[in-house]
Structure formats: structure tokens, C-alpha cells
């Protein structure tokens, strides 16, 4: 049994410390997987963040031991958070480089994110998401699962243990809330 599968089953048995161990491992594995895949791509090819998360699930979670949805939910929650961090760090680093500030190299620098406007938007979203996290953690979690892990409404609802209509309502509110929040910092014209 590999490490992630083991942690998932510990979490399934309610062992609390297990969840703290999961995130760093999933984060490292996602970075490693991204690097490994990007090394084989032609320059300019993109690697979809959400597809990467799903692929990581296949690679990292022991297929011979079919996961109950519970285990998958834990995995995707950790992977969504890890992917958010990877994208945000990459966006920050790239903007820093663009401004000529920090020239330190890092493995993911070389394979960083697309257009600068998108980097800015992503950082705006992340700042808004952090506020939402304080105000309404469940909605923030839902946004991460849908946006960064690419889960659909049904899957995200199941992962959070809520009904699909609740998830639907939460999603509508959360994304309007985030978008309003994102507009506050960057949009001074009121449009």
C-alpha cells in the first residue's frame, strides 16, 4: 500500500493527525508530476491544472484498494488546496520575475503560468478566497474543489457531504461574492 492510500485509510478510521500529513505529500507529488509531465511537453504546451489533479488521483491512490468516496473526498480536498498553492506560488513568482525582482530559479519557474493578466486575476481570486475562508469555510472549500480540482457540482457536494441543491446555491453565491470582492481591488471605474 502506498503512503497516500495508507493515510487515506487512517483518515477513514478517524485518525486526526492523518489529515495533516496528507496535504504536504499531495502537494509534493503534484509538483513532481507537473514537472515530470512538463519535461516531456513541447514549449508552449499547457498542462491543465484540473486534469493534473485527476491524473494524480490515479497515480497516487492505490487502485487495488477501491476507495470509498470518503477517501476520494479527502484526496480531492487536499489536491484542490495543493493545486491552489501551486498555481498561486507560480503566479506570484512569475509576476516577480516580470518586474525583474527576484531572479532565483525554481523548478516550476521554468514551467510557469500563462498570461500575466491571468496571473493577476488568479491572485485576486486567491485573496478573495482567503476572505471567504474566514467568513464561510464550507463555501471556500466548495470553490476550491470545483475550480482547482475540477470536480462537478455532484462530486463536490458529495465530497462536502451536502445535498446537490445546497451545493448549487452555495456555488452561485460564492462565485458572485468572490467576483464582487475581486472587482473591489482592481476595478475603480465601477464597471
Amino acid at each position: 500500500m502506498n503512503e497516500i492510500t495508507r493515510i487515506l485509510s487512517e483518515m477513514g478510521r478517524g485518525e486526526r493527525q492523518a489529515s495533516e500529513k496528507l496535504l504536504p505529500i499531495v502537494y509534493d507529488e503534484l509538483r513532481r508530476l507537473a514537472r515530470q509531465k512538463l519535461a516531456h511537453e513541447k514549449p508552449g504546451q499547457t498542462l491543465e491544472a484540473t486534469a493534473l489533479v485527476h491524473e494524480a488521483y490515479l497515480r497516487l491512490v492505490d487502485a487495488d484498494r477501491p476507495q470509498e468516496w470518503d477517501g476520494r473526498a479527502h484526496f480531492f480536498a487536499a489536491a484542490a488546496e495543493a493545486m491552489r498553492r501551486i498555481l498561486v506560488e507560480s503566479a506570484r513568482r512569475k509576476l516577480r520575475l516580470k518586474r525583474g525582482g527576484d531572479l532565483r530559479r525554481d523548478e516550476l519557474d521554468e514551467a510557469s503560468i500563462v498570461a500575466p493578466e491571468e496571473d493577476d486575476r488568479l491572485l485576486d481570486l486567491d485573496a478573495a478566497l482567503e476572505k471567504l475562508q474566514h467568513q464561510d469555510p464550507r463555501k471556500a472549500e466548495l470553490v476550491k474543489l470545483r475550480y482547482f480540482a475540477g470536480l462537478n457540482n455532484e462530486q463536490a457536494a458529495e465530497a462536502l457531504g451536502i445535498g446537490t441543491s445546497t451545493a448549487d446555491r452555495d456555488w452561485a453565491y460564492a462565485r458572485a461574492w468572490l467576483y464582487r470582492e475581486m472587482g473591489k481591488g482592481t476595478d475603480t471605474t465601477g464597471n
Partner: protein
Amino acid sequence: MTEETIFAAALEKETAGELRAFLDEACAGDADLHARVEALLKASADAGSFFEHPPAGLVATVDADLDGTPPSAGDSKNISLPELEPCTTPGRIGKLGPYEIIEVIGQGGFGLVLRAFDTKLHRIVAVKVLSRELAENPMAVTRFLREAKRMAAVVHDHVVTIHVIEDSAKPPYLVMQFIEGQSLQQRIERGGALRPAEILRIGMQIAEGLAAAHKHGVIHRDVKPGNILLENGVERVKIADFGLARAADDVDITRSGQITGTPQYMSPEQAQGEPVDQRSDLFSLRPPDLAEFALAPSLDWRAVLRR
């Protein structure tokens, strides 16, 4: 009413007039609340396209391979999604031909099973993609496609229907009926013991499905609870993965001289790598395994099959 409940109710309003009247009433003179809800509604209209596009992906650059340490797969398994085209529909991982991939639902020796939306016929389907490793082996591809074609001829209530065989795709894939439900394996693990009547009903249906396939000369080769699907509700049996075990076996035999499969359910001739026929399927469909799971008295299924 809170900002959130007013927002949710406001989304339901159909006309601008209706909306205005509702907001005036709900916010009851609270100008600040009114403004916040208005901003939310406006953001909601614009947020769609932002949130429905997946985040910008990671982009490969020329320098990517200059990184000192060669990337290693570590304990990751060598399984990967086929190359997917990007898909703009929310909640999809990507696109494979006309199929929008929703999620990975399983994997076996032959490759991956994906849940997908068929954009032409507007229905949910299961897509089975031959693994990259097997797709590189011409013999495995030929057998995979041949078995699939034979299987496609079998139309039976208790056999998963094959809709399409994409043999020119690389890697090739099959599009099949998507069964909403669980496998017999999951049913036993989650739901506990099967009652004797259920064992009989499920056993009969498996036997009927196998008989229909055998009539067309198709042998399953890997009958086991994990390949027996039970449709939600009525728990109608659907046998999946006919003949696919064979494509995987070939490669493993040539590579390592070993036979893969599911030993617990394998017939002696199969375990010894000898030719198999429909009797091997019947061997796998034997009661002790089910009975052991189910803690039910052992049943002689062969007696059932003779009926």
C-alpha cells in the same frame, strides 16, 4: 433576511420590475444592504465565464528540461489519462473525440474507464481507453478490438452494451452503456450478506448474460464480483469487461512470462496458460466465493445453470 438569502431569492425573479420590487421590500430601506446585493447580482452575471473556465494551466517552456534533477516517478504508478483536448464545459476534465470526460471511474489491466458525456447523443456513457502500454503492442490492440467487435454483437439485458468502437483513435477506446449502480463486489462489501434469494437471482442473471455471450463465441475470461455490475434500484445484473482481460494478458505474458488475472476466480486451464473456452467462465462463476462473502450456505450454482 440576510444578504445571501435575498441574493438567492433575487436570482429567481424573472423580470426587472419584479426584481426591483423584491429588492426594495427585502432590503427595507437598508441602502447599504441594497447596494451589496445589487453588486452581488451584477458580479453573478459576470462571474460565470470566469469560474467556468478552468484556471490557467501550467505551460511548458524551453527551459523546462534544464532542471538539474531528472524527474522521477517515485512510487507513482504508470497510469495516465489519454491526451485530452481542453473542454470549456464546466465540470469536465477534457474532451476525447466527441466525448466530454467527467471523471475516472475505474481502471483495470486493459486501461481506464471514464464517465463521459456524449455530445452528439446527449447521454452519459462509459468510455474504456486502452492503456498506453497496451496501445503500443499491436497484438494487444488487435485482440482488444476484435473482442470488442464480437462483444458489440451481443445485445442482452444482462450484458453491458457497446455503443461505439473507436479503433482509429490513438489509443483506441470503446464507448459503452454507463451503468448507474455498483459492482457486486461493492454491494457485498458495503451491504453485507446477500440473502439466498438474491444469490439465486443474481447468479441466474449472470448465467443468462454469459450464455448470450457464449452463443456469439465470446468468452469473458475474467468473471468476478468486480465485473458484475448491479444497476441502481432493481439491481439488474450487467456483466462488464468481456474479453478485455485477454488484451492485458498477452502483453504480460510476453513481458514477464507470467500470467496475470484474478487468481481467486481463475479456472485451472486459465491459470496454466492453456486455451480457455466458455467453461472457464462457468468455473469462475462458482458459489464458494460469493457464499464466503455473503456468509450464506453454499449453493451449487451449476445446478442453477443446468436449468
